[in-house]
């Protein structure tokens, strides 16, 4: 009973947050709503007994990713309203709904759902951090290492891409130099 | 070395071609001629070492490539493929030797060497996948030759050539995969080796579909009516050397593949489709001959005549008896020599006048008597004059098909009439009459370089016309094996009766008369 209440509550909250994320015209709202949605999702993980995953969710998404977005947004002009594309909203929503309905229909179809439920009952004790660690460092060791390298590479790439001329500081430059830089940038843009 | 002579034959030109990139521009021609000559000498050695009394494959090589799927690098040569390989080497040699001034000569020669590799590969491959790989690879150098050195519409022509043949061969690939799958179903092991496939007896309904799949690929390559329209464009736009190789060797891939794949693999389907294909062949023969007659461009005349002659080859192939198939294999060689020579000859006049329109010529026999003579010899070979190489093949092909159908042979025989009509008309327009155009008055006659290419061809034309035995005998032995295989494999009553049982007949070739 408690599980059901929690599920529906968090389901409602998650859907609401994500809905705001995709509909709001304020980037900051969107960011905040997304962060909130992430946290609510971690709740599902806890309900499902995937504690470690829940923790990772909060740390990585709400902590790291959101921070990254927040920093990223500082580069862009986020104060103004986000212009949305003109176009038929019905198509968009319709397509998405159709997609969702089909997927639901597939899962709800007797043949699929019967197979799924009747085969494996839920097991207690699975999902604790220890067992996750065991699996992660034995069976999935190589993917884990690869993921680590990938993250490293992504980090380096992020720095290299974003960090050009990071050694220059606007506060340490005088006005003329800044103007010159602007001109150069403009030239590049024009070319 | 003899154990690997086929691999050497295939890859020597390719390696030499790669090395060619390092050769200086000025000496590339000598290098190319040298390589092609060595290759030709090797192919002659192959002939020398070939035991013409053996009907099966010789010089087999077998290296596993993907054993789990039965894909192996299997090579081998029999009487059917031997001479086409030699012809390929020969034409590459004289092609390079007679190459007139072209831009990017180096690229051309290297491309030709690569093309040689693919051609010899196709004719010596005994594994369907290897065969397919070489088959498709052969498109690339030809595409390049047409696209880079062709006439004003070269891009259109080369793309058309490529897409057309490529589309066909994809269908063929599907057929091959199905064939391998059926083989797997029947035996439990995968194999793409043609010789393994030969042992597989398929039910007639499967044969029909597979035959059709293979047919599309081969028919476009031949090219059979109504898939022939890429050929005139390709010939019209290709440089001389491209046309020569295309007509002499590349087209033979299709007819060769009919004999290598379609007939022995699907004997019942071959009998089933014999009449429709014969009708197509007859349409090819007469229709394209008439179209050839309407051409204004002499190269197009030769191109359409090529299609027309290929019709006779197809007809001989589907005679399904030893005489017809031997004739068609011989005609492949004959047609290679003759049409190759005709394209070279057209190239000679094109180099001098930069036009191929017959209305621009006239009276050339006055100014270029040697050229007119050689052209005349090739013309007569083309119309099937006895004692020239073409006659032997044409005669045997038609003779063979006569056993299957009298009336269709009569119709196909119209080839010798219509062939004479367009060829003689073209010759008359070009060579006879007074010299009407001033530009033609001082044309130089064929020079030494051109003679190097043309004289051997003329000699072969006459020599094999008078004494075809050295070539005919190995072909005959291999063809007898094929026909016997077909007879043994065929399941339907009709096929059994259409395909003769060779072993049951006393072979009276070595009669007592020949003994003395």
């Amino acid at each position, binding site marked *: 009973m408690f599980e059901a209440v929690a599920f529906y509550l968090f389901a409602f909250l998650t859907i609401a947050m994500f809905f705001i994320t995709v509909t709001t015209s304020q980037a900051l709202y969107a960011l905040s709503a997304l962060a909130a949605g992430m946290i609510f999702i971690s709740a599902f993980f806890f309900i*499902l007994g*995937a504690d470690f995953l829940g923790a990772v969710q909060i740390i990585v998404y709400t902590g790291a990713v959101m921070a990254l977005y927040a920093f990223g947004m500082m580069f862009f002009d986020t104060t103004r309203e986000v212009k949305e594309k003109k176009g038929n909203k019905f198509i968009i929503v319709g397509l998405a709904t159709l997609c969702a309905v089909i997927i639901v229909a597939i899962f709800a179809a007797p043949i699929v759902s019967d197979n799924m439920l009747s085969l494996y009952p839920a097991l207690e004790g699975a999902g604790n951090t220890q067992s996750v660690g065991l699996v992660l460092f034995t069976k999935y060791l190589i993917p884990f290492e690869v993921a680590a390298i990938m993250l490293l590479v992504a980090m380096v790439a992020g720095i290299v891409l974003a960090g*050009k001329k990071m050694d220059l500081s606007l506060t340490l430059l005088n006005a003329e130099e800044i103007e010159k830089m602007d001109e150069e940038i403009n030239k590049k843009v024009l070319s | 070395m003899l154990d690997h002579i086929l691999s050497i034959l295939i890859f020597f030109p390719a390696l030499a071609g790669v090395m060619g990139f390092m050769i200086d521009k000025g000496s590339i021609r000598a290098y190319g001629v040298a390589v092609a000559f060595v290759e030709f000498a090797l192919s002659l050695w192959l002939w020398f070492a070939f035991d013409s009394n053996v009907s099966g494959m010789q010089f087999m090589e077998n290296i596993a490539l993907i054993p789990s799927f039965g894909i192996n690098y299997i090579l081998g040569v029999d009487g059917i493929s031997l001479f086409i390989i030699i012809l390929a080497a020969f034409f590459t040699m004289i092609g390079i030797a007679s190459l007139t001034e072209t831009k990017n000569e180096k690229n051309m020669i290297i491309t030709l060497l690569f093309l040689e590799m693919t051609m010899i590969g196709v004719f010596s491959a005994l594994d369907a996948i290897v065969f397919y790989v070489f088959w498709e690879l052969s498109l690339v150098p030809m595409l390049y030759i047409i696209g880079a050195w062709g006439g004003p519409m070269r891009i259109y022509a080369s793309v058309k050539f490529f897409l057309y043949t490529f589309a066909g061969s994809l269908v063929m690939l599907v057929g091959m995969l199905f064939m391998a799958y059926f083989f797997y179903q029947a035996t439990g092991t995968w194999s793409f080796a043609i010789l393994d496939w030969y042992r597989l007896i398929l039910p007639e309904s499967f044969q029909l579909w597979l035959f059709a799949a293979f047919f599309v690929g081969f028919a476009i390559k031949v090219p059979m009516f109504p898939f022939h329209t890429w050929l005139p464009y390709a010939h019209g736009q290709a440089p001389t050397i491209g046309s020569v190789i295309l007509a002499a060797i590349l087209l033979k891939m299709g007819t060769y593949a009919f004999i290598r794949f379609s007939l022995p693999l699907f004997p019942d389907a071959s009998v089933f489709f014999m009449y429709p294909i014969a009708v197509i062949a007859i349409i090819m023969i007469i229709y394209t001959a008439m179209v050839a007659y309407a051409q204004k461009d002499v190269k197009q005349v030769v191109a359409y005549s090529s299609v027309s002659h290929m019709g006779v080859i197809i007809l001989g192939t589907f005679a399904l008896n030893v005489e017809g198939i031997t004739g068609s294999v011989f005609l492949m060689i004959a047609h290679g020599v003759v049409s190759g020579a005709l394209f070279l000859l057209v190239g000679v006049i094109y180099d001098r006048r930069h036009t191929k329109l017959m209305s621009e010529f006239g009276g050339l026999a006055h100014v270029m008597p040697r050229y007119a003579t050689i052209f005349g010899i090739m013309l007569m070979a083309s119309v099937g004059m006895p004692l020239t190489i073409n006659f032997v093949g044409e005669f045997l092909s038609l003779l063979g098909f006569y056993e299957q159908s009298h009336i269709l042979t009569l119709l196909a025989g119209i080839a010798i009439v219509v062939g004479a009509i367009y060829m003689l008309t073209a010759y008359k327009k070009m060579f006879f009459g007074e010299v009407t155009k001033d530009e033609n008055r001082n044309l130089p006659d064929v020079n030494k370089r051109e003679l190097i290419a043309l004289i051997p061809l003329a000699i072969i034309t006459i020599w094999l016309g008078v004494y075809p035995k050295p070539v005919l005998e190995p072909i005959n032995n291999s063809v007898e094996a094929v026909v016997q295989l077909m007879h043994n494999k065929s399941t339907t009553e009709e096929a059994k009766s259409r395909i003769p049982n060779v072993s049951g007949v006393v072979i009276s070739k070595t009669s007592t008369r020949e003994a003395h």
Partner: protein
Amino acid sequence: MEIGLNHYLILSTILFAIGLVGVMRRKNLLLLFFATEILLNSVNIAFAAISHYYGDLTGQMFAFFVIAIAASEIAVGLGLLIVWYKRHGNIDLESMTSMRG
């Protein structure tokens, strides 16, 4: 009332649909990124739920890797966005038409 796998799957589907809506209607690339995050997360829920109900940790592992990939994607994606912004002064999808066929 028992919460079964289907509930989670349907939730995941709904979230996925919302993500799709975002992907389709957002013009601002940054906000488009948000939408992709939603898509990834919706899948994560499905993974975790399946893992739970099947008693197999593989699902969680996948979710874990998805998170890792999402993180690196954001790192690289944001870097690229910044470069783009420096060049063009905006991050509108409409301006990215150099891939026109």
